[in-house]
């Protein structure tokens, strides 16, 4: 039985396989396991944007797929769509658009119009999604999450250690920059 609590660690290290924003050598690495149809992930999406803005080049953000398909019938489709866009170099554009348009999930036309706007090959993406061309990669993300202690979405890891606090800006900022938080408290006292 656990005597002292240690949060689980990320078992699959962040690497070249990952979709990431921010410098590769940033001192702080935030990994999210997310599901495009999960409302809590939708709520966490602007939180991550805000963290990225606050922390700038000191933060690298990585997104991995954790679609809970028995609860979210569109989650796999969405994940495969983002991966198909990634193959053409537009992962983050489509990732962001999916979260900003969660209420349109299920309306493939809505997303196809955006892909066209990005000058993506809409027919190719539709074909790859229909053939589940990227499902093994999504499966790899999912299993790496299961083995790292991801039990639901969103789950975050900060420098490889699971973050168990609320997915909100202030507590996450403090967890991402413990030194900075302490300095601030000190200067106030």
């Amino acid at each position, binding site marked *: 039985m656990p005597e002292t609590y240690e949060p689980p660690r990320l078992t699959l290290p962040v690497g070249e396989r990952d979709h990431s924003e921010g410098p590769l050598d940033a001192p702080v690495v935030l990994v999210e396991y997310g599901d495009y149809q*999960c409302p809590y992930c939708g709520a966490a999406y602007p939180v991550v944007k805000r963290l990225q803005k606050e922390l700038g080049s000191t933060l690298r953000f990585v997104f991995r797929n954790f679609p809970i398909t028995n609860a979210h019938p569109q989650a796999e489709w969405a994940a495969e769509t983002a991966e198909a866009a990634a193959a053409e170099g537009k992962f983050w554009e489509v990732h962001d658009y999916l979260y900003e348009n969660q209420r349109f999930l299920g309306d493939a036309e809505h997303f196809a119009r955006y892909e066209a706007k990005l000058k993506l090959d809409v027919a190719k993406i539709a074909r790859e999604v229909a053939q589940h061309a990227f499902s093994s990669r999504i499966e790899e993300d999912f299993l790496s999450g299961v083995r790292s202690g*991801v039990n*639901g*979405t969103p789950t975050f890891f900060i420098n490889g250690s699971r973050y168990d606090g609320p997915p909100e800006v202030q507590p996450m900022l403090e967890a991402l920059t413990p030194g900075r938080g302490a300095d601030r408290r000190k200067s106030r006292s």
Partner: protein
Amino acid sequence: MSKSSDPRSPILAAGAKAPNFRLKTTPDQTVALEDFLGRPVVLAFYPADWSPVCSDQMGLYAQVMPEFKKFDAEILGISVDGIWTHLAFAKDRKLNFPLLSDFEPKGAVSRLYGVYETSTGESARALFVIDKHGVIRWSLLSPDGVNPGADGILTALEHLR
């Protein structure tokens, strides 16, 4: 009345023989632990159906089922909920394993495994991995409100080999 203040007996640990039981899983079907002799069994005790989070523990196990199947393991969810709520919950969350009803006498099997919370009248969140000979090889009592996930189960199943 004085019985309710009794402390919970400790959770059964690795090495103990898993007590047999027979519980309802549908209005006219029962499941016994000994039905699965020869295969590993995962017992997942949990407080109640309809946990309010969008991806709950049982939903996660349904999703991880292909991994459990690699070990030929059977997973059984157990709570004190009645059969009808189990059926509705399993259908809603598209669960692909049996939910057993530890309903009458209430919590009897949970007590047998040392995982009944008298203060709430529910099972604790607790996991057992039982080998093909019916011996407990791993158990975990999860803190309140913490989804213990699937990783510990998979590690324990790997160690059975």
